[in-house]
Every structure is written in structure tokens, then in C-alpha cells.
């Protein structure tokens, strides 16, 4: 039996970052909004407090904050001729669950994308020619976003001030400023807070890259460098470098999250209702299939409800946005054989993996004194900041010294050639633990016709619905890019004092057995052309205009950087257009 509830103006599927932003902006505009969150309610006090929050086994290893694989997994294969099998335990990427979503356990690494990222196809063809791009890989399916950096800039700014991002500006209105990132896209004003203190591993990296003539800058951070009150009146605190950030919630109110920046304000609104432990099964459509009538969900006691709504916002983890569209029959699923269809198309990821730099025993790195975004970085190899014309690939990576702690179950490096266990291994662990730096290479994932998401034909979730199936391997282009930069980073490792430098870089095939990145992107991409995008430039579904799919599922391919700021900027951009245009005259905001 399904209980039909009173209609509301809008419902969000998920109450993480984008769900909270939608809730706040629409309730402010006078709309009644219901937020449906599959996980539990949780808050800084009492849920994230010490000492329990500093538990490496529970949070890093057993992944207590992540989507429960028992109930919902994802199946995976490298190529469409293989049988996809369930990812029975998360390793490669970690979708969060619970109030606040992945924006609770994120690190706070807070970059903007670059100007060229949003016009990627146009930019590459303009600079290198169509033939060059085709030679990089005929399977590559890069495309423009349908929105430009200049259009998004005010929304990046608004989002940075919501979070209180701490950084040193490198480019204000085109003027290059010392101390910041000279490759930064132009910003309209400075960061709301100054950069974080530089760590020792950051300072050592700075010495190395200075010698090589690169351009170091402090990583922009949503772990705050000083107490800050955001425009909603939320008070955040100074980060204390406890070393438990990635995969953890912040006990100190020092990491920007929905809990520290939006939710306490939103939950006071009489126009908002939060319902936790509610699993949405599908978006319901009317008999024309072009209008959503609401959603059907099941609560934690197994009771089924229908929540009618005038607008439906899919605000889940990016790949779960795609699954919700597929389960609801919204948009034409992508078929890799014909190239037709759009839902699931252009799934992309991130290229990661840097070298391990083994230092002299006299150097105490003390990486356990750290935050989630403690890096000193260079952008000399990011995106298209370097000339690719003789390199035979597109894309790039930032390089940085970004150790988000040194928690010992995960981190006890030994130099190449050390036995995997036994006395010699133990001696090497004791010798190198506090005298080793992991460098990061982190960058673009080029979209490809071969990589996509669809529904698995065999495996089901706890509610009997098909799991999402991921077909993915890194295009050769991305391997060439990563390996080229890996050589450069080995040079940096030596320049910063590495006695032994174990080379990094990405290799094929992609495997889900070790952590790489939780920046899964694409699958419900934005654009100007309904034949190559699921949503228009305002994240509105082409086929069902009262459904909006927010977040990184809209990225046509992934850029160099950690993507949270771009998600926030896009969400504000879309909500602004919805408030200005859609609410006055509901219907498609872009006509083709």
C-alpha cells in the first residue's frame, strides 16, 4: 500500500550539498520544499565529536560514512564485452550517505575550474586543430558545457563565500598577484579568508619546485584558516590540523559542509521539511512522460509513500543521479553500439597517483599534523596550461604535496624492493614512516564513447531494483598524459631532497581495488544539444522540464581539479535562472 502525501512545490532526492542548496534557495523564494535523504540525520554535535571521530579503522578502513554496499552497490567492468560484477566493497571511490552526503567526509580541496574547461572542445580545436584532437583518440567525446567561466564566476564567488574558502588569489580581474596561482582563472575578488599555514611537506615541495622554475601556491581550502561567519550567519571555526579530515566529519566546525554552512538555517525554515532514512525508488511521470508528478519512496520501516511535487530535483551522488534517471525512464539511455541516446553517456573519472618520495632520516615530515587541503601545489601541468602540440595527448594534472594526515593503517610506506612482510618490512616501516612524502598528480579524465553507465541486467539492490552498471577504462590519451607528467614529478621529488623516488602515474586497466578518487562525473551531462546532453545549461532535463539533475553528473568530461567548487557554482547558477525564469513561467528554459 502506498500512502499519498500532500503535494509540495519541490522535492530533492538526497540532502547533501546540492540538496541543501536547492532547499535553501527555493524556501527563500517562498516555496514549500521536502528533502528526502536515504541516510540518517547527523550533526557536528553530538555525532562528529572526539574522541570517536578520530577512528581510522572505523572511518578510513571500514568506511562508516559511505553508501552501504549490502543494500546498494555498483557493478563494474572495463569494457562492454566483459560481464560486470558487483563492487562488493568500496575502494576506488567512496559515495557518502547520510545527511550532508559526501560533502561531510570531503577534504575541502576548493579549486575553480579554468576558462578553457567549459569550452573544452572549442578551445582544443582552436589551439591545436581538429586533426590533432582526433589523433589523440578517435573514441574521445569531449564537448563544451553550454556555460562559460565568465557566466559562472559570480556563482563561484558566492559559493566560496558560503564556505569561507581560505586561499591566496593569483588572478583578480586579470591582474596576476604574487603568492597565488598565476594560472588561476580571473576572479572578481579575493578569497574570503587567507591561505592556511604551510605544512613542512608543503614547504619542502616549494623548495623543490622553486629550483625547477615552477609556480607554487597554497591549495585553496574549505578547512578554514580563521574563524568566519558566512552570509547565512553560520559561524565556522579555525582548522586545527588534527589529521582526520578525508573520510571523516569535522568535530571542530572548521570544515565547510552542509551542517556547518546551510542546514541549521534551512531546518529553521517553516517552508522546509527534512525526511531522513527515505529511499526514493523512482520519479513518477504523467501519462505523456514529459512531466514529473513527484516521487515514490520507502521509509526505514518499509512503508511506501508517494510525494507529489511540482518540481523534482535529483541531488544525489553523481552516479546515483544517473541511476535515478534510468530507473525513472527519463531521457533516452545511451547505446554505445549506435552512439544514440544520452543518459549514461560521457561518464568520466579522474586520473590520479603520484610518486612516493623517501627522505633522509633527519627530516621529520610530521604529516599527521594536517588538514584535508594542506597542499602546496603547482598548476604548470594542469589542463591546457602547457603546449600539447608535440605531445600527442590532451589534458593535464596539478601536482602537489598534499598529505591529508599520516594515519598508520593506510600509511606506512616502504621503498621499492622492500619485502612485503617480515622483519625487513618492519624495519623499513619504522625507518620511513615520518620521513616520506607522497606527492599528488591529479587531473583530467577525457570522456570517451566507450565509457558509460547503464542499468545492470543481473544484480539488484535491497529494494529489488537494478544496480547501476559502470563500463570504464582510462583512454590511452589519459595514460600518455599521466605518464608524461609522472616523469616531471619524479624530477620534483629529487629536487625536494628525495633519496629514493618511487614513480607514480596511471596505468591501464582501471581497477576498483584501490582508492583513486571520489570525483565520478558525467552520465547526465549538460549542453546545448539534446542529442548529446541530458540537461540544458540550467541543469533542466530536456525531456521532462520539471526535473532538474544537479551536480557533477552534468560535467561533459572531468577537469583537472577536485570538483566540489564547480558543483556549487553550477548549482547556484541553475537556481538563479530557475528563480528568475522558471518559477514565473514553468517550462523549458532553453528552446532548440
Amino acid at each position, binding site marked *: 500500500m502506498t500512502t499519498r502525501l500532500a503535494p509540495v512545490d519541490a522535492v530533492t532526492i538526497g540532502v547533501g550539498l546540492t540538496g541543501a542548496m536547492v532547499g535553501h534557495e527555493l524556501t527563500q523564494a517562498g516555496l514549500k520544499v521536502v528533502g528526502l535523504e536515504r541516510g540518517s540525520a547527523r550533526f557536528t554535535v553530538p555525532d562528529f565529536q572526539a574522541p570517536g571521530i*578520530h577512528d581510522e579503522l572505523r572511518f578510513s578502513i571500514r568506511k562508516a560514512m559511505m553508501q552501504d554496499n549490502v543494500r546498494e552497490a555498483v557493478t563494474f567492468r572495463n569494457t562492454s564485452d566483459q560481464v560486470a560484477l558487483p563492487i562488493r566493497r568500496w575502494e576506488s571511490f567512496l559515495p557518502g550517505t547520510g545527511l550532508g552526503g559526501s560533502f561531510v567526509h570531503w577534504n575541502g580541496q576548493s579549486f575553480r575550474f579554468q576558462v578553457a574547461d567549459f569550452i573544452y572542445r572549442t578551445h582544443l580545436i582552436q589551439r591545436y586543430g581538429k586533426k590533432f584532437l582526433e589523433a589523440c583518440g578517435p573514441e574521445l567525446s569531449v564537448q563544451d558545457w553550454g556555460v562559460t567561466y565568465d557566466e559562472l564566476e559570480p556563482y563561484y564567488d558566492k559559493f566560496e563565500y558560503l564556505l569561507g574558502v581560505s586561499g591566496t588569489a593569483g588572478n583578480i580581474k586579470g591582474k596576476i598577484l604574487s603568492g597565488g596561482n598565476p594560472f588561476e582563472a580571473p576572479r572578481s575578488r579575493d578569497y574570503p579568508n587567507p591561505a592556511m599555514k604551510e605544512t613542512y611537506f608543503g614547504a619542502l615541495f616549494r623548495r623543490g619546485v622553486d629550483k625547477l622554475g615552477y609556480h607554487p601556491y597554497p591549495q585553496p581550502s574549505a578547512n578554514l584558516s580563521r574563524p568566519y561567519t558566512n552570509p547565512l550567519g553560520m559561524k565556522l571555526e579555525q582548522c*586545527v*590540523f588534527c589529521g*582526520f579530515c578525508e573520510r571523516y566529519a569535522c568535530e571542530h566546525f572548521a570544515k565547510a559542509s552542509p551542517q556547518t554552512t546551510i542546514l541549521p538555517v534551512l531546518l529553521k525554515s517553516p517552508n522546509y521539511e527534512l525526511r531522513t532514512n527515505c529511499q526514493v525508488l523512482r520519479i513518477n511521470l504523467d501519462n505523456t512522460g514529459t512531466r514529473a508528478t513527484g516521487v515514490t519512496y520507502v521509509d526505514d520501516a518499509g512503508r511506501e509513500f508517494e510525494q507529489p511535487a511540482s518540481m523534482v530535483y535529483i541531488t544525489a551522488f553523481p552516479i546515483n543521479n544517473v541511476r535515478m534517471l534510468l530507473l525513472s525512464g527519463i531521457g533516452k539511455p545511451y547505446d554505445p553500439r549506435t552512439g544514440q541516446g544520452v543518459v549514461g553517456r560521457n561518464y568520466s573519472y579522474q586520473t590520479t597517483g603520484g610518486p612516493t618520495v623517501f627522505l633522509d632520516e633527519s627530516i621529520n615530515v610530521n604529516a599527521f599534523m*594536517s588538514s584535508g587541503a594542506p597542499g602546496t601545489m603547482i598548476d604548470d601541468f594542469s589542463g591546457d596550461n602547457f603546449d600539447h602540440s608535440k605531445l600527442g595527448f590532451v589534458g593535464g594534472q596539478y601536482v602537489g604535496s598534499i598529505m591529508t594526515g599520516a594515519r598508520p*593503517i593506510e600509511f606506512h610506506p616502504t621503498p621499492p624492493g622492500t619485502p612485503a612482510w*617480515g*622483519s625487513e618490512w618492519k624495519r623499513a616501516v619504522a625507518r620511513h614512516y615520518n620521513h616520506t612524502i607522497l606527492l599528488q598528480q591529479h587531473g583530467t579524465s577525457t570522456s570517451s564513447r566507450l565509457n558509460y553507465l547503464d542499468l545492470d541486467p543481473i544484480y539488484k539492490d535491497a529494494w529489488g531494483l537494478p544496480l547501476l552498471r559502470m563500463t570504464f577504462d582510462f583512454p590511452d590519451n589519459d595514460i600518455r598524459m599521466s605518464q608524461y607528467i609522472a616523469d616531471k614529478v619524479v624530477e620534483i621529488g629529487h629536487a625536494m631532497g628525495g633519496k629514493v623516488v618511487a614513480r607514480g602515474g596511471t596505468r591501464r586497466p582501471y581497477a*576498483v581495488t584501490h582508492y583513486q578518487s571520489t570525483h565520478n562525473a558525467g552520465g547526465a551531462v549538460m549542453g546545448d544539444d539534446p542529442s548529446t546532453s541530458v540537461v540544458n545549461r540550467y541543469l533542466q532535463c530536456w525531456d521532462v522540464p520539471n526535473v532538474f539533475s544537479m551536480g557533477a553528473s552534468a560535467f561533459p568530461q572531468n577537469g583537472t581539479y577536485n570538483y566540489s567548487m564547480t558543483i556549487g557554482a553550477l548549482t547556484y547558477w541553475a537556481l538563479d535562472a530557475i528563480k528568475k525564469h522558471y518559477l514565473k513561467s514553468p517550462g523549458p528554459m532553453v528552446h532548440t
Partner: protein
Amino acid sequence: MRAISRRSLLKLTGALGATVAAPLSVAERSAPQAVATSAADAPHRYSFFTPQEAAFIQAAVARLIPRDGEWGGAIEAGVPNYIDLQLAGAWGAGERLYRSGPWRPGTPGQGYQLPFTPAELFKKALAAIRTEPSGQAFEHALPAQQDAFLKGLEQEMRDLGGVPSNVFFDHLWQLTQEGFFSDPVYGGNRDMLSWRMIGFPGAYASYYDLVDQHGIKLDRPPMSLGEDASQHIHHDPDIPAVLVAPRIVKGDSR
């Protein structure tokens, strides 16, 4: 509420302790009296392993992370006790493990695809090992023979009752490392032995005043989760971040 004291924590973890009261290492001999007492008090009791299974596990982890002249190893850290508790509890029963079939062998990149929970996997593999001639006498073999046997498990992929030996070895090694390095509240890493060995200070709440003192040698005892919940960070910069000022040994003057 004042948190559990260091002494009572060690008593607590000791009460769940391993069956072997090993000789103390140099480091442990120099440790506070309370530590030595609790280790010696540890009763010989397992929740999950049979005595025969426990004998194999103890002998195996003693080779994976051996004791040396300077530091205790997996036995001294209570790793068998940790593994026993993990397998007896929710993780052993398949917590956070997608368990629906069909089960098929996958590519290495597709990860674990066996139908066994960790508890089932250990039971199956340990039973099969006991049917092998060198497995029967494992705990009585010489260290070099034990190492060769473990290498065989690691590299051979031979069948252990449906469990490939390398998969069993990977599980054993992962749990051994967890038991050696995790917080002592889980029954391993007794007296924070591994943390003292590598210089990890544990669950201190703040390094704000230290993070830019580049290269200092932090010389203070590590702290467990169970030790002192009252050392919470204060946000006011005029209030010291930690109750006890750390001893700073050496700065980086370069």
C-alpha cells in the same frame, strides 16, 4: 565525564587479550609498569578461533610482523586477539559487503568476488591448511620453514576449500596490519606499540601551534581514543589547544 584512564584502558584491552604472554621487548621493558602488568595478566581466551586455529594464526602473524631486539611484533601487539574479535563481530559476518549472487570469477580489477564472509573464508582456509602436511605442523616448524609456507600461500593461488590461498593470505595480512596499527580500543596495537615504533601520536585533537614548526621531533606518548575524551580542542586562540604542552626536541633550521 572523565574518560577512561590509560591504566584502565590497558586493563580493558588486556582482558580481551591474546593467549600468548610473550617475553617483553626492549621497548616494553622500558614502558610504564601498568603496561607490563596488564600484558602479563592477559587471559588465554578466544571468541572465534578454535585452539588449533589460534595456534596457526599466532604462529603466522609472529612471522608476518616478528619481534626484534628493539620492538615487539604482532604477538606482543595482540594482533591474534584483534583478528579474533574482528572475525567474531560484524565485519566477520559480512558487514558492508554486497552479498548477492550470482558469484563468478572476475578480473583482478573487479575485486573480491567470493561468496564467503570473512569469517567463513578464515574457517574454510584454516581447515584446508590443516589437511596439508606442512600446514599440520606449521606452528612447530622452524621460522624459515614457516616463512616459506606463508610465501606459498601468498604466491601459489592453490585451492583451500574454495578459497584461493593468495586471497586468504591477503585477508590475513590486511587484518594483521590493522591489528598492528589500529587504535588499541579494538584489541590490537597493545600499549600503542606500533605507534611508538613509528612515531604516530594517535588521536590528539590539535596541532595548530605545531604545524608550522617545520621538522620538529614530537616526543610525547601517543594517545588512544579510549584514553582521554576531555582533551578537546578549544576554539578561542587565547586558550591553549592541548592540556599538556608537547616536548619539542629539535627544529628545522634550514
